[in-house]
């Protein structure tokens, strides 16, 4: 049940901010500080989420096959690989390292 609550709250919240942008008069959110904060907020969240989902096991920090997989994704990104290839690299390398007992 609580999963449905989370889904409902997220759906309403995310739709509301999308609509807000289309409805408010131009200029209302255009203050430079607000714009810069909005641009920087996803950077902070995505960085923290990437790190956590790579190194977290519950509340413990671990170094396992995922680190190798995400490392492969990083290499693919540096080589300017397309989105799907980046994700595929992470999955294949993680599975490979795990199969080797990593």
């Amino acid at each position, binding site marked *: 049940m609580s*999963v*449905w609550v989370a*889904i409902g*709250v*997220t*759906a309403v*919240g*995310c*739709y509301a*901010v*999308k*609509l*807000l*942008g*289309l*409805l408010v008069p*131009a200029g209302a*959110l255009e203050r430079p*500080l607000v714009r810069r904060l*909005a*641009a*920087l*907020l*996803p*950077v*902070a*969240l*995505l*960085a*923290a*989420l*990437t*790190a*956590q989902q*790579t190194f*977290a096991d*519950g*509340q*413990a*920090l671990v170094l396992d*096959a*995922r680190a190798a*997989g*995400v490392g492969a*994704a*990083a290499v693919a*990104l540096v080589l300017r690989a*397309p*989105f*799907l290839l*980046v*994700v595929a690299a*992470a*999955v294949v*390398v*993680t*599975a*490979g*390292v*795990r199969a080797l007992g990593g």
Partner: protein
Amino acid sequence: MTEQTVVPDTGAEGKPDAAVVRDALGVGIAVGLSGFAFGVTSAGSGLTLAQTCALSLLVFTGASQFALVGALAAGGNPLTAAAGAFFLGVRNAFYGLRLSQLLALPRAVRPFAAQWVIDETTAVALAQPTRRGVRIGFTVTGLTLYVLWNLTTLLGALGAEAIGDTAAWGLDAAGPAVFLALLAPMLRTVTERATAALAVLLGLGLLPVLPAGVPVLVAALAAPAVLWARGRRESGDGRTTAREEER
């Protein structure tokens, strides 16, 4: 000079519609297919088929969806998990603001267009030189992406249920890889890199001591913290106002 030739917004020199459609389809199809990764990740995190599909249909902004299922899988409180997903979605408001001027939609249409205001539709729409191009780019990208993203979410979730242990297939690495792929193009300046580094430190450092989901929210404070630190440094030599007028 060359700058003057770029401005015409009359459509006279516009890109052919077919070229806009081609760009839009390219982005829509490539990203739409990655709904598969979401479906697999979500089902692997323990969400039901209905919950997984509801997320793609109703939330329809990838980073928030991955964040939510990740936080729920880690045992986070539902509202904490939703808060992290919501903050990731806030950037769409600023896309909407920009698109609103370019699309010039009637007010009655806006509630329907809103669901498609995301990274990819904005990127394609903003790249078009004319209003007609912007509208075609937005609509074709939005429609392709919405249909494919939901279809591949369903297939991914069904596939995950069929293969059982998604971790054995390395599919638990799909989530962080998606985040990294979204993050990488944003790391252009020192400000963004410093924010990312601080957020990683906070996110990992607080993980063992705070309840699940909360460390991500604290890590979000890296954004205002870095802006504040930069503002202080720059106000020393009075460059802040000049900077602010630039954008």
